[in-house]
């Protein structure tokens, strides 16, 4: 259980750094760093326009659909991980 305690402590420190960040950046919405890089680009080259390679793509209409797709991504991954760990664990126990 030792490693679990260490990881738990790191998770608590992670939450602490978030609250520190919250206090240090009042009014920040914690937007994506990817988007912040866009601002850096327009600071360096204000005339740059992103070009369109013309691939058909789907853009989520809003934050709700986007969060749905991100949640689906996480859920699918979590199911796969949980399924195989359970499978291995059960197999090990029945083999003993």
């Amino acid at each position: 259980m030792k490693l679990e305690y260490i990881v738990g402590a790191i998770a608590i420190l992670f939450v602490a750094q978030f609250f520190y960040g919250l206090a240090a950046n009042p009014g920040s919405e914690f937007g994506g760093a990817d988007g912040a890089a866009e601002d850096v680009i327009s600071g360096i080259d204000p005339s740059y326009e992103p070009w369109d390679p013309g691939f058909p793509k789907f853009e989520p209409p809003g934050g709700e659909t986007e969060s749905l797709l991100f949640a689906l991504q996480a859920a699918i991954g979590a199911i796969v991980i949980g399924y195989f760990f359970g499978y291995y664990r059960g197999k090990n126990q029945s083999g003993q």
Partner: protein
Amino acid sequence: MHIFEGFLPSPWWQLWFAFSIPVILFGMYRLNRLVSERREIVPLLAVAGAFIFVLSSLKLPSVTGSSSHPTGTGMAAVLFGPAITSVLGLIVLIYQALFLSHGGISTLGANVASMGIVGPFVAYAFYKAASKVNMNFYLNIFLATAIADWVTYVVTSTQLALAFPAGGALTVSGFLSSFTAFAAVFATTQVPLAIMEGALTALIMKYVVQVKGDVLVNLQVLTSEAVNKLKGAVG
């Protein structure tokens, strides 16, 4: 680390494709061979891919007041090597580019290079080197993954600074000035996330050792003595 669609001008997006495509092809070849020779690793491959899926979907807040996400590639890199990891990274990046308008098709080459190739390569190289000097397995995984996560964002900063050097022309000082600006956004934000990701990867590897230690021996990640020692430890 996602460079958005259209945000890399010519010739940079082509150059990053030229960098990534050979590695992807080699990774597909390695993946095919591994899967046909060792059917028993397929579930572990699925778990490593799923781990990338989960971690790269989590947008975590950082002390800088921005959010960013872990990459999740450290586990696959240590288990299967960077070439196979690049294929797994490609799958996740295509999903995010097509359905989430996160990243893009034109920038796929560059995004695979940072998240799928250079970061995992660093994790793999670090893990192998630290194994040689008998570093504690979980500390090794933690450091290899955290460093790889962070390096991924340093690569993104480099890619953007090469494409957008300050002053317009690509000079050393223009590159460095832009790199500093991009790294301030990415690399600083990423430090707490990299630490968290390293810790989570160490934890999931602990469970892999417990339930499927023999596969780690087959993949030459650990010796069988090391697996027995880790299993026996009350850790």
